[in-house]
């Protein structure tokens, strides 16, 4: 487009081209030395080579400065024109002046009757925009600054509160974790010391308790009051030795074994207690592991025995950790218990703390007292047959046992024997025997459904029998009450029963 314009200008005389068109051409086409183009404040700067014709009013505002450097112009036409202008400056001025006047006149003719368009003072807008830009810059600067501060804050807290962040050395979280670990280890050490002393104290108590139980069995078996009083004094003496270790063990067991200060979260006391109990168990298991490895490696018998003993101790310690039943039992005031109650208490103690002595006690408690059981059968049989085992069975009849069969695991007892009578009352004798055995608090579920008898060669009637029954583990049985011997007129039988009850 610019080239076309240039060709048009170069072919036509300069006077034919309107000034407005010339000015609107791109400046690079014109080699004016002083392109003093006055632009109205409302006119935006031309950035494109617009070919739209300028209005006359705009054209009238241009004041051309036609001083052209001839030497710089290579085009012959323009060079000639420049020469002509240089030579006849005044004539060109006249031409331009006339052109401007003509143009102004034409503009005057075209002016609206309303006059010029009102001009808006946009300087205010420019100020506002400037201020807005400034505000925006400030706000953005502050925002960016705060972001930097925020980031710094994040980095600081992350570096301090994350225990794994060790770029700048040990931080607060790591310090706290280390302190916590030290506290936990130390508290576990304290707990271990306490439980070790408690084990020793309880062993002392259990040792004394074993002596007490042995003496107590003598006390219970003693019939004479004087003997009982003598044994009771011994029991009191043994008891004195039991109190101190028991009460010291209680003190150790009930001591607080956990700490809560280092926590940032809320943990209940029971949870904290369990946590420290578990830490102590872990410590003991680790010790046991070491002992076991040493045991497997060593070939020395003495060392093996020592390690076996240590492992047994370790096992007992593990039984004590977090032992709630033991904790409850240790709060008992054993001084206020009588001998019988103390004996029962020792049973509960052994069950709660399965140390070696405790296990021994449990096994002993489960044993069937066979001698007493056989004696009880003998006593009950004598109640039915007063001549039992007196050597008169062949002549006078009665009951004779041939075989006993005792099964301890099920508590089943089987008796086989013979019954003999002159008057044929064999069945009644055996029925009495069944009731007598059932009435004992030692036996229950007595069963004999088959009765038989025949004429004896030597006179009278005889028959064999088999009775099955079981040991009664319960304190009482409905048939015991139903067959209450104390209500019967036979005082000897009542005495036996009471004796038997007392023996229990």
């Amino acid at each position, binding site marked *: 487009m610019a080239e076309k314009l240039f060709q048009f200008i170069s072919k036509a005389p300069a006077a034919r081209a309107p000034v407005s068109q010339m000015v609107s051409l791109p400046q690079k086409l014109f080699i004016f030395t002083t392109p003093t183009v006055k632009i109205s404040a409302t006119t935006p700067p031309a950035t494109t080579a617009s070919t739209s014709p300028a209005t006359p009013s705009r054209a009238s505002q241009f004041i051309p400065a036609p001083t052209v450097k001839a030497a710089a112009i290579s085009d012959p036409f323009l060079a000639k024109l420049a020469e002509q202008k240089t030579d006849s400056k005044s004539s060109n001025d006249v031409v331009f002046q006339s052109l401007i006047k003509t143009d102004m006149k034409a503009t005057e003719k075209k002016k609206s009757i309303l006059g010029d368009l009102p001009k808006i003072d*946009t300087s205010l*807008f*420019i100020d506002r*925009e400037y201020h*807005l*830009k400034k505000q*925006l*810059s400030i*706000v953005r600067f502050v925002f960016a600054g*705060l*972001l930097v*501060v*925020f980031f710094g804050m*994040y980095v600081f*807290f992350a570096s*301090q*509160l994350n225990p794994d962040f060790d770029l700048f050395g040990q931080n*607060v*979280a790591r310090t*706290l974790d280390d302190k916590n670990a*030290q*506290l936990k280890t*130390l508290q576990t*050490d*304290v707990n271990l*010391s306490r439980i*070790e*002393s408690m084990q*020793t*104290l309880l*062993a*002392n108590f259990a040792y004394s308790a*074993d002596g007490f139980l042995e003496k107590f069995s003598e006390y219970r078996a003693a019939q004479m009051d004087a003997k009982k009083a003598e044994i009771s004094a011994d029991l009191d003496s043994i008891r004195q030795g039991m109190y101190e270790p028991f009460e*010291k063990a209680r003190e150790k067991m009930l001591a607080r074994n956990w*700490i809560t*200060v280092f926590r*940032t979260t809320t943990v209940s006391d029971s949870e904290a207690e369990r946590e420290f109990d578990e830490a102590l168990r872990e410590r003991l298991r680790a010790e046991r592991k070491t002992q076991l490895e040493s*045991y497997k490696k060593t070939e020395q018998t003495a060392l093996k025995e020592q390690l*076996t003993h240590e492992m*047994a101790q*370790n*096992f007992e310690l593990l039984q004590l950790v977090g032992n709630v039943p033991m904790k409850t039992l240790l709060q008992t005031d054993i001084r206020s218990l009588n001998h019988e109650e103390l004996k029962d208490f020792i049973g509960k103690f052994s069950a709660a703390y399965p140390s*070696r*002595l405790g*296990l*021994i006690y449990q*096994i*002993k408690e489960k*044993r069937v*007292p066979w*001698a007493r059981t*056989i004696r009880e059968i003998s006593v009950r049989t004598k109640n039915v047959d007063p001549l039992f*085992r007196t*050597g008169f069975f062949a002549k006078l009849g009665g009951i*004779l046992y*041939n075989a*006993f*069969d005792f099964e*301890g*695991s099920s508590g089943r007892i089987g008796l086989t024997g013979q019954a003999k009578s002159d008057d044929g009352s064999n069945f009644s004798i055996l029925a009495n025997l069944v009731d007598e055995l059932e009435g004992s608090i030692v036996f229950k579920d007595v069963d004999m459904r088959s009765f038989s008898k025949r004429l004896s060669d030597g006179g009278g009637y005889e028959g064999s029998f088999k009775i099955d029954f079981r040991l009664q583990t319960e304190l009482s049985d409905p048939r015991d009450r139903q067959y209450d011997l104390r209500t019967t007129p036979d005082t000897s039988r009542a005495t036996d029963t009471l004796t038997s009850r007392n023996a229990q």
Partner: protein
Amino acid sequence: MHNNSLSLGSGTPSMIRQHYYSRKVKMTVAGLVLLVLCMGYYGTERYLEYSQKIDIAAQSQTFLDDLQKTQQAERAFTLKTQEASQDAALKSDQELTSVFPAEADYTSLTRLLDDFFKKNNTSKNPIIATDLQFDQPAEDDKKQFTILPFSMNIESSEENFYRFLAFAESSGTLKGKIRLMDIQSIQLNFPTEEEQTLKKSIRFNVKMSAYSQKNNNQ
């Protein structure tokens, strides 16, 4: 600022540019307020945690010092208690080992039984074990101890029969130092009346258990 010149051409009317800048300022201020709120919340939370940890770390040192003292006292007490009980513990341990040994140790048990029969067997009151058989040891249901089952056929007088029962029942006391045992079953044949008159022996078969500690070496 360069972005503005890019987004807003020079030909954009001034009012539109003002609106644009004004909106930008408002949005940025809103973002700024939001940022301040977030910073406030985050900063407060983290600072509280930080200061709490600082305080707790300081307190922990005090507790550590106290615990050190407690540990020393507890250790001293434990050593004192163990030392005071050393003799009794040694004695108790020896008695426990004989009553409730660490191993099943059937040979020692055999010697113990044989010793009992030898001591009590007299011409007037005989007692002879004619047969002794041991089974393999096994742990109890709760795996707390080991059981060694064994059985015997015995011929004895009635008196020695009761003595044998008493021997089994009194086993397991520390003072007695007799290996802990238990009679599981008895099958007993009484002599006839004539045999009783002639002081004939009772023949019985007894199944028993001897107890020992659980093997902790596994």
